Structures are given as C-alpha cells and as structure tokens.
C-alpha cells in the first residue's frame, strides 16, 4: 500500500463517489461539491493564463496590436448576458461566432462529411480480383445505404414495396444503434476499470 498522501486522497474521493451506488450520502455530496468547486476555480485560472493572457492581453498590451480590441469588445458583449437590460449585446458576439464558424465549416464539412462519404459508398459490388467476403461486404453496404435512405424518404407512404424496403432499413438502423450501445458500454466499463485499477494498483498495490 502506498504512502503517498495524494494517492490516499484520490482513493478516498473515488470511494466517496462510488458510495452513491449504494445510496445518496454526505460523503458523495462532499466529493461532488469539492469537484465542482475545484473544477470551476481551476478552469477559470487555466483559461485566463492559457487563453486570455497569451491571445488577448499580450497582443493588445505588450505588442500594442489594437485590432485585438475587437475580440475584447465581443468578449465583454458576451458577458453582458448577465444583465437583463443590456443582455441583447451578447447577440453581436454570438452572431460573429456563428457567422465565422459557418464560413469556416460549411464547405469543409460538405467536402469531408457529405461528398467524400458518398464517394466511399459508391463501390463496385464485385471489383476485379475480389474475394467473396469483399463482394458480401460491398453488397451489404449497398443494401444498407439504399434501404436506410428509403426509411428516411417521407414523400411516399411506407406501404407495399416501399414499406418492405424501409423495414429492411430499420433492421440496419437497429444494428447500428446496437453497435453504438455496445461501444458506449465498453467506454463506461473502461472508466470503471480505470478507477478499479487505480485503487488496486496505485493505492493498494495488489495488482
């Protein structure tokens, strides 16, 4: 077992949080409030020294680059949301963010998440020299995409052939949701493993 006080503290707080699994209790509340308070203070300091100072203060005050008055003004506008009467100033900053964000993103997003994805779907079902597994994979991809798209085609009632194809699309969607759920379970179990490994290895030293 370690003698490091930091590890003991971390282990104690981990157990405090785990105690919620039994029921809500003062130990859990203590750890939760401590986490929220420390996080707020930490992030405030971190962002001031790593974002506001190098990106704004240094450029504006030390280098005398006056164009940085614009982001300063927009930043102050954003904070004015705290005052109901002049809170509408924040819309200017939000409009700037949305406008610049859209300008940067739209073309790039269309290129990589729309056109490239369509291109990746348009594959030959039986490319030259391919194995049967490749043919099966490509066929599955084709059927999944087409039936999935039919399911989201709402201009025709999902009856008859359209309904049948849409139902196949639902099966593909369910498999997709199942895969996402499986990965989510894996992520959550990984977090539990991480904490358990910390307790058993770093704290107790039995692993």
């Amino acid at each position, binding site marked *: 077992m370690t003698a490091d006080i930091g590890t003991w503290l971390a282990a104690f707080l981990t157990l405090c949080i785990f105690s919620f699994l039994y029921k809500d209790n003062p130990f859990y509340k203590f750890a939760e409030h401590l986490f929220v308070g420390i996080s707020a203070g930490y992030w405030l300091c971190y962002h001031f020294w790593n974002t506001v100072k190098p990106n704004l203060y240094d450029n504006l005050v030390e280098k005398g680059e006056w164009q940085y008055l614009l982001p300063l003004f927009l930043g102050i506008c954003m904070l004015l949301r705290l005052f109901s009467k002049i809170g509408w100033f924040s819309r200017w900053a939000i409009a700037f963010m949305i406008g610049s964000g859209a300008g940067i993103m739209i073309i790039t997003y269309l290129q990589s998440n729309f056109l*490239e994805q369509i291109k990746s779907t348009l594959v030959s079902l039986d490319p030259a020299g391919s194995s049967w597994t490749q043919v099966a994979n490509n066929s599955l991809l084709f059927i999944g995409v087409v039936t999935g798209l039919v399911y989201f085609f709402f201009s025709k009632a999902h009856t008859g052939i359209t309904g049948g194809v849409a139902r196949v699309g639902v099966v593909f969607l369910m498999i997709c949701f199942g895969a996402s759920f499986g990965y989510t379970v894996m*992520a959550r179990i990984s977090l539990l493993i991480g904490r358990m490994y910390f307790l058993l290895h770093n704290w107790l030293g039995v692993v």
Partner: protein
Amino acid sequence: MAPEMRVSIVERLRNIDRRVIFVLVAAAVIIPLLHPLGLPLKSSPPSSSLYREIENLGPGSVVLMAFDYDPATDVELGPMSLALLKHCFSRGHKVVSLALWPMGASLARASFAQTAEEFGAKYGVDYVNLGFKAGGIVVIDSLGKSIHESFPKDVDGTPLEELPLMRNINSYADIDFVLGLSAGDPGLPFWIMIAQGRYGKKVGGGCTAVSAPMLYPYYPNQLLGLLGGMKGAAEYELLIEAKGSATKGMDAQSIAHALIVLFVIIGNLFYFMGRSREKRGGQI
C-alpha cells in the same frame, strides 16, 4: 418446478435491487484484474492498418500528434498514446505534439516522460511538445499556414527557433502523418476535415469507444487507421509487442461485457415470461 415458485422467481428478478447488479459488475471487473485470464485478443483491420502506416513511414518522418483529451478519458486514450509513441520512437520518427484540449498538454508531457528515455529520444531533437492552444478547428487550419505563428513557443515557453527539430518544420508540408487522439470536440473529425480534406495529409488516430461508431465511416478512405477505445489500445499494444495497461484491462472488459449480455438476455426472458402470463390473465 411448481408454477407458484416460477412466478415468485420471475417477480423477484423483475424487481431485483439494482445494487445487486452493481456488485456483480464490480466483481466482474475486480476479479480478472487480480487474476488475469489471458483471454485471446486479435487486432482488427483499422488497428492493423494504422500500425502499417506508421511502420511504413521512413526513418526521420515527422508525426504530428494531437492530444485532444483530458484525464477523464485517459484510461482509454493514455495507453494508445504510449503505444503510438513507442512505435514512432522505435522507428526513428520525430514527434511534434500539440493539444486542442487544455489538459492534453500535461498528458502529452506524461506520455513522453514514460516513453522517450527507453528509446533515447531527446527533447527538441526527436520530439517537441507545443502545448495547448484554444480555437479548435481554427488552430488546425492555421497550422497549414505557419506552425511557428500559431505556436511561437513550446509548452515550457521556449521559442521554437531554439528547438532544432522545429527549425525545418513550419506547416503541414513538413508533416508526414497526423495522429489524433480524440475524446470529443475538438478532435479527430476536425483533423480529418482540415488536415486530410483541405491539406491532403495522411490522418489516423484513436478515439474513445463512445465516439468510435461515428468515426469508423471515415475509414479507410479519409482515415487510414483507427483505434477504438480500450480494445483499440490493447490491439496496438499487441501489434507492437509491448503489453500495457490496456491489455491488462481487456480481461475485465470481456468478462464485464459477457455479464451485461447475460443481464440483457435474462431481463428480456423474464420480461416476455411476465408479459405472457399477463396476457393469459394470471399473476406475474
């Protein structure tokens, strides 16, 4: 078994105290950690593909590695960073790291500390940690113009001109491969959009298991390889033949998954048994 007893078991299992489930899941995680089972593990095509890409880069190639995560996801992405750094250093690649998440810079420092010495890699010559920069996609885009303008100093405040490795690296044109370790936004999708989509760089990386289903569609055309969650990290450890914490956690992961699958089956079984009895007008 008498019908009354079957009814009683169905009733009891339908109303089981959730803490029983918690205890069973905890046992499924703790026991394999204490007594590893050594369950078999195989690398998947996206992991193998990433391995091949790194393996096939020439010695001295420059790899840009983004640590876009924080301690909350270190259990999944930390082992990936160690395995990838070990592979890069063993192949003689130069590594330039940066972070779009504030804590990423510290985690990069920790990963370098655990790997560089083993391979004799020197700071400033074989690897550099540029630190954190706020701005997400704007920062990624700015690297295409000038890394030196975006990051005038490294994580310790040393001007880039004083670091030998950075003298000849100033934009994506000087980068051979981009590796993104991503826990969310900003992360790997932005690297794909900008570094791959706009600047045509080779991009690969790793992500948390939660975001893996969203990123797999980019493989293999836009993303040359992907490590998904702890399993991806364990697969990469297997490929580089250096077992680490991800491999140790995979037994627990497998047992816990088997238990959850069992819960789902049992839950559904008793749900349908109960519903069938309800339809017949009997008690549950």
